[in-house]
Every structure is written in C-alpha cells, then in structure tokens.
C-alpha cells in the first residue's frame, strides 16, 4: 500500500517491508491484508463473470452451429495450445513459489521466480501471436513455423529478409467484416472466428495486465518492499495470474479439443 513513508519511524537501513505501516483506518496490518485479499477475490469474481459472457456466447453459438465450431477448431493446432497450457501452468507454479519465497524472506529467489513468470507470459504471447494469430489473420508465417514448409507451394511474398513468408490464401481467418478466408466448409465459420478472437483476445489482454503487475512487483521487490509481514501486492498479483491460468484451463479444451 504505502511506499516510502516514514510513519514507522525506522531508518533507511531497515528493509522496506519491515517499515511498512498499515493505512490509518486499519487496526493492524493483518486486517489490512485480509481486507485486501477479500477485495481482490471480489475483483476476481467480476473477472470470472466478465468471461462468463464469453463462455455463454460460446455455448449458445456452439449449440446452434456445432459444425462451424468443429470446423473452425480444426484450424487450431492442439499442440500449440498444449504448449501454451504448459507454459501458463508452469508460470502459475513459479508465481506461487515466488510468493512463498517472499514469505520466507528469500528475496533473490523470489525475484528470480517473478522474472521467470514474466518470461513465461512473454512466451505465451509469443506463441499465440506468432504461430496462431499472425498466420491466421494475415497469411504471414514466421520463418521458423514448422507448418510453413507444407505451404510453400503457395508462397507469394517475403518480408524482413525472409523472416516472414506470405502464403496466398491461408490468411483471412479474421473476425467479422475482415474475414476473407476462401476455403471454409461451413457458412457460419466466421462466427467461430469471432468467438475465438474475442475469447483469446480478451484473455491475452488479461495476460498483458498480469505481466504488467508482475513487472511492477519485480520493481518493488528490488526495492525490498516485500517480506514475511508484508507481501499483499505479490499475493494479489499472484491471484490475478492464477485466474488468467484458470480461464485458459477452460478455454484450451473448448477451443482446441473439440471434434
């Protein structure tokens, strides 16, 4: 909560977390921590209900157009989904472990684990963006994409010195009015892509927010702000990150594993 305040009356030689003083309206730091956690759980409830809308739209539309969803899903590779699930699960673990380290005052390990969590987030977004969004939206493939060699017959462009390769006709699986993919076999496939991009896009936005929080935690941890008696921010960031994981646990089978 409070940052470099001097209310505790302790000198600068004492770590920041030891100098932490609860807000003036709290009886003690325990209560403040409890309240922050409760508040954050309420916030998580709102996040779950935000995604409830997407899940509901998914359920209703899949009920109406099962074939479109199955067809659309077949363009996604479950192995990329699996990799991303693993990445998120591992990052969830490192996040939880990081909180544990701060609880035990093992600052450097805690910071390292935070950094690993952050890197996992980057990895998730990288896979999502490079191997899933980019080719599907535009037909541009990253040159390392393992699927690329199979489409080279239809190559019709390169960019950045061969770093990206364009495949004619592959792209265009975009939402709504930007949809221009020619080989759909179900008339309602654009709807599937709309749901897919809304769900994964909003989830990715949450990943970005979570990563920003983790970065902020890392910066504060370097200043020594978290320790056994005060780690509210890391704890809540962790809760947020786990929620991101939780949503993905449901999105993964719903998007990748249907047939």
């Amino acid at each position, binding site marked *: 909560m409070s940052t470099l305040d001097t209310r505790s009356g302790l000198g600068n030689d004492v770590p920041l977390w030891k100098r932490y003083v609860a807000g003036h309206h709290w009886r003690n730091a325990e209560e403040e921590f409890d*309240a922050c956690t409760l508040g954050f759980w309420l916030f998580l409830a*709102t996040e*779950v*209900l935000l995604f409830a809308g997407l899940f509901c739209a998914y359920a209703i539309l899949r009920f109406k157009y099962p074939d479109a969803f199955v067809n659309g899903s077949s363009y996604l590779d479950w192995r990329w989904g699996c990799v991303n699930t693993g990445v998120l699960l591992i990052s969830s673990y490192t996040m939880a472990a990081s909180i544990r380290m701060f609880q035990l005052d093992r600052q450097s390990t805690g910071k390292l684990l935070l950094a690993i969590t952050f890197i996992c987030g980057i990895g998730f977004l990288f896979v999502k963006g490079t191997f899933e969004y980019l080719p599907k939206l535009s037909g541009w493939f990253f040159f390392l994409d393992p699927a690329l060699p199979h489409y080279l017959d239809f190559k019709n462009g390169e960019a950045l010195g061969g770093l990206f390769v364009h495949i004619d006709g592959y792209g265009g699986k975009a939402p709504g*009015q930007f949809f221009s993919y020619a080989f759909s076999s179900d008339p309602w496939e654009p709807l599937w892509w709309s749901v897919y991009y809304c769900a994964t896009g909003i989830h990715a936005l949450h990943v970005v927010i979570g990563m920003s929080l983790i970065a902020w935690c890392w910066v504060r941890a370097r200043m020594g702000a978290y320790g056994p008696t005060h780690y509210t921010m890391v704890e809540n960031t962790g809760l947020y990150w786990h929620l991101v994981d939780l949503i993905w646990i449901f999105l993964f089978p719903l998007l990748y594993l249907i047939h």
Partner: protein
Amino acid sequence: MTTLDSSKAGHHGDHGHHGGSYLTPKGGWLTTVIDWATTVDHKKIGVMYLVAVLFMFFLGGVAALVVRTELMTPVRTVEVQATDPATGKAMVDADGKPVMKSEIRGQWLGEMKAKIDGQELTSIDGGNNWYNRAFTLHGAIMVFMVIIPSIPASLGNFLIPLMLGAKDVAFPRLNLLSWYVYVTGSIFAVCSIVIGGVDTGWTFYTPYSTTTDAEYANVVLMVLGAFILGFSSILTGLNFVVTVHKLRAPGMGWFDMPLFIWAMYSTSIIQVLATPVIGITLLLLIFERMFKIGIFDPALGGDPVLYQHFFWFYSHPVVYVMILPAFGVISEIIPVHGHKKIFGYRAVAFASLGVALVSFLVWGHHMFASSGELAATVFSALTFLVAIPTAVKVFNWIATLYKSSIALTTPMWYALMFLFLFSIGGLTGLPLGTLATDLHLHDSYYVVAHFHYVMMGGTIITFVGGLHHWWPKMFGRMYNQFWANIGAFTVFIGFNVTFFTQFFLGTQGMPRRYASYIDDYQIYHQISTVGSYLLLVGFLIHLFVFLHSLVAGRKAPANPWGGLTLEWEATSPPDEHNFHHEPMVKHGPYDFETTVPPHWDPKDYPLPALPKHAH
C-alpha cells in the same frame, strides 16, 4: 418543523479544538481544489459524487422535459428546420419561409449527417431523429449516470464508514479512482451527445444499435462510456462489501448494523456480480459495431435475443441496485423521525439479501414478448417472488409507524411519499409479471409509468429525502423546512400528474418511444407534460432551498433529528477522521426506547419523553 427552530442549535457540532471539519479549506482556493481533487476522504468523495450526479440529473432532466414538450401534440411540437443535404443549407420554400422537417417527412436526409459528412448518408431523418436522441439521452443518463450511482456513491460513500464507526472505506484510493472513472465515463457519454447523439434507446438493442449511423462513432462512445461507468460501479461495490466485512466498529455485530448498511451491502453484492456481465456485453457490442463480429447480428448468424439475455442479466439486477439503497434510506428515516425501533429488523435485513438473490432469477420478464414460451413461464413464476420481500419491507415500515412519534419533517414527508409512490409502482408491476397481460402492456406507456414510479418515485424521491435527512450532517447547515416541504409537495403532485396518466396511455395502446400518436391520446399527454413542468418547479425549489442553506443556513447541531446510528455521534459536519475516538457500539441502531440520542439537547429539538421503564 418548529422543533428545529431553536437558535441555539449547533453548539454540539462546534468542537473547534479538535481541528476543522472535513469541509474546512486547507488554504487558498488552488490548494483547496488540489486537496479535493486528490482527496481519499470518503466524505469528500461522497460530496464530489453528489455534485457530479446532480449535474447529470440536471442534464437528464432537460432531456426529459424536451421529450415531454414534444409529446404535447400528436405531431411535431418542437419544430426543426430542415436542411438540404445537397447544399448543407437550411431549407426555405419559394416564399422564403423556413421548411420544417415534419413537412418533408421521409423526403430529405438528416441535417446532422449532412453537416458532418455529405458523402454516404445512412438513415433517413423524418424529423424524429432528434426526438429519438432526446429520449435515449434521458434514459442513458438517468440510468447509468444518475440513478445507479445516486444513493450508493454519494450518500453511501459519505455514510457507510460513519455508520460503521470507521475512519474511511476499506480502499480509499480505489474510491477516488472510482470517482474519476465515473467522470471519465460520463465525459465519454457527453462527448457522444455533443457530436450528434445516440438514437438507440438506452437498451442498445441489437441489431439496431450496431447498424444505426453506421459511419459514426457516437454509439461506440456512448457504449464505451457505459462500459467505463461499469468499472466505477464495480469499484464502489467492492469497496463497500469489504468495508462492511472488515471495518465495523468494535461491538458492532452483523445485526447491530443500521439497515442502510444492510441495503448497501446487498446492493454492492449485486453490483459486483452483475456489472461485469454488462461489461462484456458492451465490449462485444463495440466489437459488433466496429468489426461486425456477428455474435448478436442475425444477418451474420448471431442472435439478437442473446444480446437481450446478456443485457438484462445485468440490467434487471441493476434495478435493485437502484431501489435497494432507497429501501435502506427509508429504513433510516422512518425510525429516526418516528422515534421508534424499526419493526422486524431481521426481516428487513434479510429481505434486502433476498431481493439481491431473486434479482438474478427474473431478468427474462423483459422478454415475454419475444416468444420463448418455456423461459417466459419460468421467469414469470420467479418474477412474482420479488413481490414477497418488497411487500414484507413495506409492511414493516408501516408497522414501524404504529405507536411511534412521527415528526413531520421534510425527510419524513419524503418517506411517506415514498411509501405511497412505491406501493403504486410495485402493485402496477403485477400485471407486467403476469404473462397474459404483459403481452399487451409490454413496451407501452404502462411500462414507462410503472418504472418511473419505481425508479423515480422510489429512488429519486428517496435520494432527495435522504439528502434532506443527512444534509445537516454533510454540510453542517440546516435548511428552511417550510420551503423544503413546499418543494416536496410540488414534486409529489407533479410526479403523480406526470406519470399516473401514462398508465392509461399504456393500457389504451400508446407504445413507448413514439414521437407521434393518434389524437385520442393527446389529452393524457398534455396532462403529463404539465405535470413534468410542475416537477421542474419542485426540483428548482429544492435547489434554492439547498443553496440558501449553504449560504445562509443556520448551523446544524450534531444530531438534529435524534438519531442513534453512529454518524450522529460525529460532529456536523464530521471531522476529517470522522470521530475523535473510535466509537464503541453500546446500543442498537434503533433502540429509541432505552437510549438517549448522542449529543441530545432538549433545547435543540424536543423528543418524545422516554417511557418510564427506560429511566
């Protein structure tokens, strides 16, 4: 009324040696402005909310008057001169007389469009466009920017920590943030109005809302505004829930809380659980408009009824976000001004929670006319459940009046008006929950009248009443009760004249959102319009009473009505940190039989003598 005219009143509130009240300026005007803009004090934030909400109320009220004025006659009342889309100039006929839009209905294109961009014109303006914009403006502002935050964000923010004996809400900075979020959302909405307005109705029903004015950003801005306002609502609700859980004064158990707190607690739960769904709904609506993603658009395979479910899953519970705080205020005003313990405290408290629960089960009654027989039947049955806790509350309030000692102060007048108006609002809701009759009344003026009786007769009336109840506490000044009562009666009469006629309009076949109608309805519309002007007069009287009170009002005593809840233990206006010492709760919030109110001075205001056994 005369009880409060003692000139000695206020000396209890004057604890100068403890430092200034929260209203005391910190220095020059710039310092003061910065202090207010960066304050985390729940009282200041409450007052800031109050000012913002009242401003939006003014805007929405102007729109309402425009709508009512237009409906004076079956055709155009407010004439708009037509514009030639080819030249962009105002149209005149051969004699140089201005040509009105109504004269060329359906023949020329919209003035607004032509001004912005003469290229692709997407909708015909037969002269109703501005009317449609006016009622949308009225609806959207009143719902999203006035009624939802009215009592919770202004009175709630100010009172919840005081009533709980806390120094502040749980997350003061979040509280300030929520005010800024509210203002940001309102600015978006106002921007959308300034650049041309929105003609979708406040419900933004697809596919109309995703396609109207297809080239312009008005709808996106308005929807974005509502989306942002949702965050403000969530933050406020979340803050209150945690505050109630964690910051009750020592000795205050759950059933020692004032009923206002119970009502606000239930409200906050609804806000937290329902608002995110409107968030995603509006987000998808924005995507629908910008990218045509098709989830709600039948032309692309989506389902407009899905949108309605999304929308009403939030917007029905939010009806209780609007009315539950009003219940809370009434549960305070009646015991205090009747000087009697509330009848059936637990019933009232649980009824609040019950309403909150049932509110999530009944949203489908907004869709009876869209033909889902099974769901309609289930929702109709569940809808009647709402009647039970609300009826229980009304019975309890009236039972509280029995053998009480009723001081007919302005807040009490408002409470009595509320009982009258809310009873009408509630009872006229019954034919709307009844399937057979709803098929006739749905989307008619009957519905308009019904929800105005509940929303305005319930919430706004109570908001103003609550404002009168806590005004001395908030600003440390008394107001002129005679003129306040005159204002209250004017509002009451104006309100009934405006809206009772609309019940008849509805049953006789007047659809809502109509700018023109058959001549038979005109007399009702005219009465209604006259009533709305009377309402304006009533509110203006209140405005002047409040302004006069701020400038020249008598200093308020700490406890002008003899209340027992903790906010009356603070000074008027309260200190910056609310209480000098952390209050200990030694009596219930309504134990008038056994407790002498804090800061009570018989010279300030006479209270009925305590019964003998209390001494």
